């Protein structure tokens, strides 16, 4: 039974609060408060938490991971997933380092590595679109495949340290702040506008909500999906280059398990496995929350091996919550 009352044009247009979702984002205020609460708890109970050095290091780590979650979030909006991000992250970073060790200049090396990442993203997207392959399984495949490539490169380098100029890249500052942090802030602001107003983001939401409706409405589903997979790989690649610079040498463990951190953070931030939703601001907060939780565990001297357990538990909890939420709206 529906309300059959019809209101005419005299209906006052309600002004929405700034942080509220407009149907194309989600309410991130609650998430911000939770993150703040965890922050306050740690700051009040642990002396060495709220030090400039510790906070800066958390924020720096989050800002690099954040670069990788940009494309990933928008892939999820379209009800697809890209689990190859961690591998592409490692591959692109290691390839850049390897080329630099081989005597290349930074820009050519980074450029070639990012092109390679873009190619991986394109193949992922193309296979999903053209053959309608389930992206979860497909990108598990590409995750393994690309991880293999990254390991070959890392083994060849044998733990060799990257050239000095590359090592200093991650420590580049802008106004005395790490450049990646500045970029994160800028991207969050951009995402705000993008998600409020852009036609592209709305189309992505439509595709995620009902791909057949989107097709019938003339939205170029295939093109947009492929673009998102390319973006996912390229943003993961950029983050990988910064990470390679930060850890200063080739390491086979680079970016291991990153994809699961990403899924968890994105869903905490308002994305859904069932598509139609996703918020880059929320993803940033989700990463922040996870980083605080992990840092807090260190502060409380909890065994580092336990971290894996916590990430796993959080992943299950968020996915379960997402599913329940989705079922209720049906």
């Amino acid at each position: 039974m529906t309300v059959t009352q019809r209101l005419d044009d005299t209906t006052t247009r309600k002004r929405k609060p700034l942080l509220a979702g407009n149907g194309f984002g989600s309410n991130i205020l609650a998430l911000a408060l939770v993150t703040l609460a965890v922050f306050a708890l740690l700051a009040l109970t642990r002396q060495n938490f709220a030090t400039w050095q510790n906070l800066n290091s958390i924020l720096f780590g989050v800002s690099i991971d954040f670069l990788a979650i940009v494309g990933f979030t928008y892939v999820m909006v379209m009800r697809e997933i890209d689990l190859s991000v961690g591998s592409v992250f490692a591959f692109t970073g290691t390839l850049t380092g390897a080329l630099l060790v081989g005597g290349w200049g930074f820009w050519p090396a980074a450029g070639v590595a990012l092109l390679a990442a873009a190619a991986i993203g394109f193949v992922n997207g193309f296979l999903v679109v053209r053959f309608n392959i389930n992206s979860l399984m497909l990108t598990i495949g590409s995750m393994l495949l690309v991880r293999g490539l990254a390991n070959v490169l890392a083994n060849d380098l044998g733990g060799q340290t990257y050239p000095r100029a590359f090592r200093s890249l991650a420590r580049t500052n802008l106004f005395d702040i790490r450049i990646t942090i500045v970029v994160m802030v800028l991207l969050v602001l951009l995402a705000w506008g993008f998600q409020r107003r852009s036609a592209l983001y709305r189309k992505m939401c439509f595709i995620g909500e009902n791909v057949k409706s989107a097709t019938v409405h003339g939205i170029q589903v295939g093109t947009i999906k492929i673009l998102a997979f390319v973006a996912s790989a390229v943003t993961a690649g950029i983050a990988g280059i910064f990470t390679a610079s930060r850890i200063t040498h080739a390491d086979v463990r680079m970016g291991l398990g990153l994809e699961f951190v990403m899924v968890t953070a994105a869903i905490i931030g308002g994305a859904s496995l069932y598509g139609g939703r996703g918020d880059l601001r929320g993803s940033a907060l989700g990463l922040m929350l996870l980083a605080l939780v992990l840092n807090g565990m260190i502060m409380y001297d909890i065994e580092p091996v336990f971290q894996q357990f916590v990430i796993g538990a959080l992943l299950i909890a968020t996915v379960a919550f997402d599913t329940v939420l989705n079922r209720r709206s049906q």
Partner: protein
Amino acid sequence: MSVAGTLPHARTAPVEAQPILSLSRVSKSYGAVQALREVGFDVVRGEVHAILGENGAGKSTTLKIIHGEVEPDEGEVLLSGRPTSAHERTEGDIAMVHQELAVFANMSVAENIFVGRMPRRGGRIDFARMHRRAAELLELFGVQVDTHEILGQLTPGQQQIVEILRAVESDASLLILDEPTSGLNNREAETLMALIKRLRESGHTILYVSHRLHEVLDIADDITVLRDGQFVETLRNKGLGEDDLIRRMVGRDLGPVSVSDLSSVAAAPVALAVEGMSLSGAFDDVAIEVRKGEIVGVFGLEGSGAEQFSQALFGIVPPTSGTLALLGKPVRDVSPAALMRRGMGYLNGNRKEAGLYMDRTIADNVSAPVLDRFSRLGLVDTGKVDALARADIRRFAIRVPGPEGRPRELSGGNQQKVAISACLANAPEVIVLNEPTRGVDVGAKAELHDVVRSEAAAGKALIVFSSDLPELLRLVHRIVVMRSRRVAGEVAGTAMNEEAVMALAAGNR
């Protein structure tokens, strides 16, 4: 249980004066909305009792209360004269077949019929006996389907029939069928009508809800009409016509059937020209021309290829060969995005499957196809989106609180209006409509027909695919009939009647 030759659970129906089901002053509100107000009527044992009403009239609430899914606020539901609780009715011998299919697509026909009650022998399922009995049931109702067939392989109509047979097999004395023919083509609907008549002969009581008035007139003994949550009248089905029912349902006359007039459009330029279009495995060598201001119907029984033709026409499944010209210009890229840019609009036959975003606002829904037009530098002008939604709500009389309403909260008719709004948002010159009034009540149907006619009057070319033949006959200028994956012929003007179309469609000629 059943033996070949006799109907299952045939009751040696004792002729009881007591009605099998009575509603007495039943009321129900959801929040501020009064869904039912003091509704009361009797259902006579062994008869087919139809409930009619527009969407929002209270039919689904009534059914849910009878079936015990919903507790009424006031009033009583009596079974054979005895007051019952909602719980008793859910547990009791009332079987309901919902409008949406609830089947196991990966299981066999027999398993679907006997789901939860499979015959057993020594703790194991007796498959032989199950298939034998399923075959008997199917044969009794003249359904030619192998009981081993996987249900997902059947047509929606056959699946619906299997679902009804499941309810029949469940030994219920009262069978509720909610819009059972909404997904069926004419031939399947006829099979179903025959099935219902046989069920009545075997002593079953059937409560039947349908928008298709001719079906109701064909099979019902009594017809109860609801309007705006209130009981209007229970009519004995004798000497009634569709107009009698419509008047009671909407509380007004809907006006005469339109007279098709071809002369005004005969000289108009061709808006859509299709030649030699084929899609391998679906249809071959189809040609069609639609002029500006013309409404052309396409009719075909299931398997005729009409449905696939409509999808190929809009590039949803690109045709394998053939040419398509829009407004005199050949179109090489037959894809939805390209055709929309060139002035074609498309309404899908199943609005929930494609055409709506159930959980997005009306504003989002109607603006989805025109986002680019409403954007500058990639940014959407939300003022324009809002204005479009308000204009559509007014034009199509969509009953919704405002542009922020969502299709999931609306009745079928209002959902369809939203889907049509989206289809027309881009002001297309050539409009392809599939089942424009499927699952829609009489009032909304008339409104949607008015929309179609006004688009034609504005010089648009329309091509309407519908399995509802009476609808096509009163709506379109001429009908192209498809049979066996090809165009079988065309009828127009005075020659356009049900017999002529069916003769072409069913291949009697």
